[in-house]
């Protein structure tokens, strides 16, 4: 999966209306959409595509989209 595809799916998962506004630099924690249901959806997204569990420690470390990509692992992307 390309990073750009992942960010597109992420925008879809978080139900961000204007998908193009979501960039690697975007701070997820500042988004109104990033509530507990969105975190649940994020867990599903990462489990489905990468088979990885997002732990509470991971969630503490997630700020920007880039930080999420880091947690998943750069090597997971094309």
């Amino acid at each position: 999966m390309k990073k750009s595809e992942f960010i597109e799916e992420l925008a879809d998962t978080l139900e961000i209306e204007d998908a193009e506004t979501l960039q690697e630099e975007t701070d997820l924690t500042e988004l109104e959409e990033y509530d507990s249901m969105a975190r649940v959806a994020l867990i599903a997204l990462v489990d489905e595509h990468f088979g990885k569990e997002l732990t509470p420690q991971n969630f503490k470390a997630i700020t920007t989209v880039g930080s999420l990509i880091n947690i998943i692992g750069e090597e997971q992307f094309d």
Partner: protein
Amino acid sequence: MGSTVKNISYYLPEEVVDNRSLEQEFTEWSAEKVEKKVGIRERHVVGEGETALDLALKSAELILRDYDKSRIDFILLCTQSPEYYLPSGACILQNRLGLSTGIGALDFNLGCSGYIYGLALSKSLISSGIASRILLVNAETYTSHIHPKDRGNRTIFGDGAAATIIEASDEEDIGEFVLGTDGSGYKNLIVPNGGMRSKYDPEAKEADDGSGSIRTANNLYMNGPEIFNFTIRTVPGLVLDILEKNQLSLDEIDRVICHQANKYMLNYLRKKMKIPEEKFYINLLKTGNTVSATIPIAIRDCLDVGIVKPGDKVLLAGFGVGYSWGGTVLRIE
């Protein structure tokens, strides 16, 4: 000696909280969006002074309308909203229902796995010859633990009680059980105050959890993301183990009924387990998550609309608070 589920009835309290009324209480909250995601439109909640034991009594009265109550020789009551620390609610039920005094009665404290455990206990009591006609009641009022400003949990949970009669029979209709426990997750679904470890605190401070929900340590707390992680880790393996232990393939199962947690979670689990949509029951639209009562309510509804027919093999799986989980295969009589 085999055992069989003879009948199931359920009772929901009269008061209904629908998404429209929640929308009026919580701004920036879309009823439509919530219904689409969690699959819940309304939930029944207990009124002032109404308890889980009241619901238990009503569900039991319903089922005993068509049953000679003098034949009941054991009561199992599953609840996490007990009437008192002591005595057991099951003892009060014996008296209120006018059942014989020569019977066994006990409460057990489990949530989302509580129906599976109730069936497992019933089957064991019957096969050991201790009892032969058991009244199992799953009664829950999580809403009485929930803070009025806790938007998330008020959306998900509803109250209700289900009564099941399990009887001795020549054939075994209740299959093999798989049970599991992992207490390391106990803090992720908990009412922190009110027990002996940390007593109810009238001065407990309200705190916002950052998702627009407010609660105190006297209230129900659920770490939704962590509970979801637990189910992803546990439920697919649980379903495989149930099939293996019962020497069945998924093709031989007519219907899968999981604990009705919420639609989003169930749909994800279904896809992950590759269970065909038409085999997988989801219905929380009018009840919400009623904890240990969701599975018997679902079976009753499936029978009433003919989704499940006599002779069908139904795989049941319950999982949640504890963490505790379990499952079996039920042959419908």
